[in-house]
């Protein structure tokens, strides 16, 4: 029921329409969905996970275990939000996330009647028979499980990250957080203060009648905020939750930027959420505490909540959750709520498990006409779908048993307080542990216990629940923090005395004895009896109890239930609570969207796409692309065929291949890694990092090199040019470039610093056009007059400097296709220009740009390997039949050499690379086909190796392939066929040399 409470933060002049579970309601600006629903008298908001019991709102914030709702529809729909954290906006549409067919009647509740047969872990003991029925059982279980629905269409809103570096981060904007931030701010250091809620103030917003320094709670907060806002070195963030604290005070915090706005007010150019990554020299945790309910019979009936929630709805939202409230407490923290409600016209009955009531309070209560039951507890709540009353029992001295007949109290809302549980989560994320305090009856963190890590704690989180004492300690703690930053604290004009009534000690009690189900963790239906069962079954570690009962497993992560669970476990284990300890607190403090975690790293900007300078032209030629490393490389260039469709890859590749073999074609080879290496020891350096020898290579010449890892396995390859005796230009594979660069640097820096070499990556500087084919010389000649291109002046494996199309170029006569070919390297700024010029110059010869697929076919026809396709990290040069590329006589034991001599690596009968031919020349083997001895494919079948490369060679008019075969080199060209297995079929193949075209190299020697 909505009451007119002058302190309420809700603006009754701004009504908002919203819809929950198909019904329309009205709430007000400042409401949460929870407060608005309560104001509208909605009691049932969910059905419980296991038993389908009706559930209502228990808390007022992040601790809410029951009221999980689905907000919005379509692309904006979001599952499992806590109604207590959803700010109301006009037009909000919410759905329940449990209860089928409806909240009023849930089918599970039928099964729920058999709850006695469904204790913790019952599913481990059953659903086992008959064995093959498990899939059926499972599908039933699955359909029963789960809360909200995942969206089914892509998210249309966006997210990003923002990195901050601050001297002091204060987490939590309650009284203590505000004070801490102000003190830090006044000292001049950079400060960030953030709070998860829509406005700063924390619990002050729930206790408007408290006064600080003579000001009302809200006035005091406003004063603090005003000064904080006036400080340029302080940044304030609301709706911002610190959800993870990581090593060295890296805090992840997510800011909700738009979800609280009506759709009409949301902007496409703004983010939905922003993740702040805050690296803070010092962190001050002012995260407060959650009130812990007491555990009693049927404590899950809608209308049972925590006393602080009751107070919060009443004071902050102007909502009375009932006309007659029964409040059960074991401590004084609920008293203010009792007084506020009574003063506000609610009939209040107070039950306190303690036998004496603090005298001052007693007087207050008497004035307010409150019935008080001292030494009483609630044994059982009455009512099924909502509270109608409760049974009170007189507790015996030990409080574990009741004496005398219960008396029945009629009421329509019940609230309880078992004390406060500090919000220690963040403190523990990076390995910290809370300690039990018998005085606070809570797991607390010390204000400076982790000062060495830069972590300080203030307020309720430290177990100091008195407002005034807390604030005073906050000043002391901040003094220490600022001192460590070489600053002084300045508390000028801060008056911290409050109007609190001194409190009397709380009583250590967590559950009231009862004969009916009493729930500890509402969301997972964990009852006291489940914890008892777990212990009985020897799940005695609190981690086992958690895992067996699912205590604290839910979306609230046990904010309300954990400590009660630990305490009740201790009782059954006959241990003290500190002996039992806590489970591990992990991120996220409250759930955070995948979108916020991903930030900008989605879609176009998920990961870099690297392009060469010729991309502009490739676009024009409508290339299809292949991803190689981070690069986007043209895979092939489909042409429109007669009926104006694009050619398929086979037509395109055949055309491109024939152009290269018979006319002229051109490949963008810019993506190859290029490393410029200089110094007097370059040759020695190359001798060490390459398998082959470099001492003799003359300036003006190029050589192919094989690079091995220390295990002797082929790691990369490429052609390296000798520019001068002290200057070489190395090329690497496209995918291996970065790896090789680091590899070279690492060996140089760590093992051979004495070698005089420097290396610099020039991959991006040079673009490379590979001009390939019998006509390539003629094309190049049209654009290049200052290099003598004649056969003998410019030999195979030579390089020359000159100009191409007027652009300074380094031309290498090397060939990965076996054809006459020139690789033309120019400054990338001219890359696209030169590429264009070559295309025009070649037009008369029908010059054909080609992609990686054709490059693969051409090199396969020549038996050249591709590192990463022929090799997989388990292949040596000898396996590749490339002993010619290994200089065994080099003085220095080059990288990988020794490994080649290991007993297994040196075996002569390893898998070796060979050529493969099918009998049927039109049949193209599957790359990845396995090679076997016979057509018998009934497993297990002994495998000889596999097909690494396989293509249709338009030039040869037949299919060709390469692959590994055990002892393959010996078996070349002997007639007994082996078989290639793929797609359930085995076809005969002959083992042949892997050079299919021009073994003697006549084609490129022209």
């Amino acid at each position: 029921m909505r009451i007119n409470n002058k302190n309420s933060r809700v603006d009754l002049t701004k009504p908002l329409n919203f819809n929950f579970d198909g019904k329309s309601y009205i709430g007000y600006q400042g409401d949460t969905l929870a407060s608005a629903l309560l104001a509208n008298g909605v009691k049932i908001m969910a059905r419980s996970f296991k038993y389908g019991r009706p559930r209502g709102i228990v808390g007022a914030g992040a601790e809410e275990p029951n009221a999980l709702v689905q907000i919005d529809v379509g692309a904006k729909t979001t599952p499992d939000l806590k109604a207590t954290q959803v700010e109301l906006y006009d037009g909000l549409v919410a759905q329940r996330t449990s209860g089928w067919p409806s909240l009023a009647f849930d089918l599970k509740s039928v099964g729920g009647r058999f709850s006695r047969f469904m204790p913790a872990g019952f599913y481990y003991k059953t659903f086992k028979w008959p064995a093959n029925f498990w899939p059926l059982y499972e599908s039933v279980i699955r359909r029963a499980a789960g809360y909200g629905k995942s969206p089914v269409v892509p998210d249309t809103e966006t997210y990003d990250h923002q990195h901050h570096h601050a001297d002091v981060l204060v987490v939590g904007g309650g009284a203590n957080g505000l004070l801490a931030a102000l003190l830090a701010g006044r000292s001049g250091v950079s400060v960030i203060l953030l709070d998860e809620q829509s406005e700063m103030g924390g619990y002050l917003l729930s206790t408007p009648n408290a006064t600080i320094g003579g000001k009302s709670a809200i006035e005091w907060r406003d004063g603090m905020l005003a000064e904080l806002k006036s400080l340029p070195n302080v940044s304030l963030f609301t709706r911002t939750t610190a959800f993870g604290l990581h090593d060295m005070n890296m805090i992840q915090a997510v800011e909700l930027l738009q979800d609280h706005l009506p759709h009409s007010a949301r902007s496409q150019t703004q983010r939905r959420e922003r993740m702040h990554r805050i690296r803070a020299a010092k962190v001050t945790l002012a995260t407060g505490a959650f009130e812990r309910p007491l555990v009693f019979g049927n404590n899950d009936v809608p209308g049972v909540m925590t006393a602080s929630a009751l107070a919060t709805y009443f004071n902050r939202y102007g909502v009375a959750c009932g006309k007659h409230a029964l409040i059960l407490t074991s401590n004084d923290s609920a008293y203010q709520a009792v007084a506020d409600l009574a003063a506000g016209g609610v009939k209040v009955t107070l039950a306190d498990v303690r036998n004496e009531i603090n005298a001052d309070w007693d007087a207050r209560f008497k004035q307010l006409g409150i019935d008080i039951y001292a030494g009483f507890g609630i044994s059982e709540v009455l009512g099924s779908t909502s509270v109608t009353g409760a049974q009170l029992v007189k507790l015996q001295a030990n409080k574990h048993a009741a004496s005398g007949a219960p008396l029945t109290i009629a009421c329509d809302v019940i609230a309880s307080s078992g004390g406060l549980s500090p919000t220690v989560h963040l403190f523990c994320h990076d390995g910290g542990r809370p300690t039990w305090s018998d005085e606070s009856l809570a797991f607390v963190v010390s204000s400076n216990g982790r000062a060495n890590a830069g972590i300080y704690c203030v307020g309720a989180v430290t177990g100091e629940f008195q407002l005034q004492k807390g604030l005073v300690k906050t000043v002391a703690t901040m003094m220490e923090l600022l001192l460590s930053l070489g600053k002084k604290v300045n508390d000028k004009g801060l008056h911290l005395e409050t109007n609190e009534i001194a409190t009397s000690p709380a009583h250590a009690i967590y559950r009231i004895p009862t004969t009916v189900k009493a729930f500890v963790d509402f969301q997972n239906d964990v009852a006291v009896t489940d914890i008892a069962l777990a212990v009985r079954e020897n799940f005695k570690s609190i981690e086992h109890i958690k895992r067996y009962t699912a205590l604290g497993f839910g979306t609230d992560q046990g904010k309300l239930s954990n400590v009660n669970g630990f305490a009740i476990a201790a009782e059954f284990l006959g241990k003290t609570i500190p002996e039992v300890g806590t489970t591990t607190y992990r991120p996220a403090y409250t759930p955070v969207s995948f979108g916020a975690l991903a930030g900008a790293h989605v879609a176009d900007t998920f990961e870099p796409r690297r392009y060469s300078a010729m991309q502009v032209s490739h676009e024009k030629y409508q290339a299809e692309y292949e991803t190689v490393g981070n690069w986007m490389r043209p895979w092939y260039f489909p042409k429109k065929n007669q009926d104006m469709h694009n050619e398929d890859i086979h037509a395109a590749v055949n055309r491109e291949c024939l152009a290269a073999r018979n006319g002229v074609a051109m490949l963008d080879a810019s993506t190859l890694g290029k490393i410029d290496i200089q110094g007097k020891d370059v040759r020695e350096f190359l001798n060490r990092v390459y398998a082959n020898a470099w001492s003799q290579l003359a300036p003006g010449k190029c050589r192919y090199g094989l690079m091995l890892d220390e295990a002797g396995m082929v790691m990369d390859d490429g052609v390296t040019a000798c520019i001068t005796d002290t200057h070489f230009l190395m090329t690497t594979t496209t995918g291996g470039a970065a790896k090789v660069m680091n590899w070279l640097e690492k060996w140089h820096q760590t093992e051979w610093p004495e070698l005089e070499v420097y290396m610099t990556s020039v991959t991006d500087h040079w673009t490379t056009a590979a001009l390939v084919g019998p006509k390539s010389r003629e094309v190049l000649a049209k654009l290049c007059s200052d290099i003598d291109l004649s056969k003998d002046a410019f030999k195979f494996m030579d390089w020359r400097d000159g100009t191409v199309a007027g652009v300074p170029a380094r031309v290498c006569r090397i060939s990965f296709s076996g054809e006459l070919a020139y690789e033309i390297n120019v400054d990338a700024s001219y890359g696209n220009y030169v590429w264009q010029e070559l295309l025009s110059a070649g037009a008369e010869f029908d010059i054909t740009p080609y992609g990686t697929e054709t490059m693969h076919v051409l090199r396969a026809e020549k038996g050249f390997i591709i590192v990463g396709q022929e090799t997989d990290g388990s292949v040596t040069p000898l396996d590749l039949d490339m002993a010619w590329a290994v200089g065994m006589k080099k003085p220095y034991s080059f990288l990988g050499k020794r490994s080649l001599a290991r007993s297994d690596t040196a075996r002569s009968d390893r898998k070796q690379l060979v050529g493969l031919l099918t009998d049927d020349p039109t049949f193209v083997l599957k790359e990845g086909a396995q090679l076997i001895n016979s057509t018998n494919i009934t497993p297990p079948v002994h495998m000889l190796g596999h097909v690494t490369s396989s293509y249709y060679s338009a030039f040869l008019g037949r299919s060709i392939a390469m692959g590994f075969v055990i002892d393959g080199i010996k078996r070349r060209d002997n007639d007994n066929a082996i078989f290639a297995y793929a797609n359930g079929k085995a076809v005969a193949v002959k083992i042949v040399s892997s050079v299919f075209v021009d073994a003697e190299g006549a084609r490129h020697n022209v």
Partner: protein
Amino acid sequence: MFVISCPHCQEAREEEEFHYEGEAFIARPATPETLSDEAWGDYLFMKKNPKGWHWEMWNHATACRKVFVLKRNTANHTIAGSWTLDKARTVYDAEQAAA
């Protein structure tokens, strides 16, 4: 999520700027050919992998591209210091001698 001081850039930087390069001070044998398969295999693959203080190499990948040495506790992620390769060597040797 570490903050690592690069001894070359002489500034504390975020972990994302660096690459981990594994255990430090695994020296390459001077004469591999004279080693047994076992000794060579140990050099190739065996790691201290301690729970506690670990001497390890990092590479300041986005900046100076230098490999340097970090002493880090693998049991609690505290960092004792970072040194250039040659300085680290002396600190490390001294520590070994002491122990």
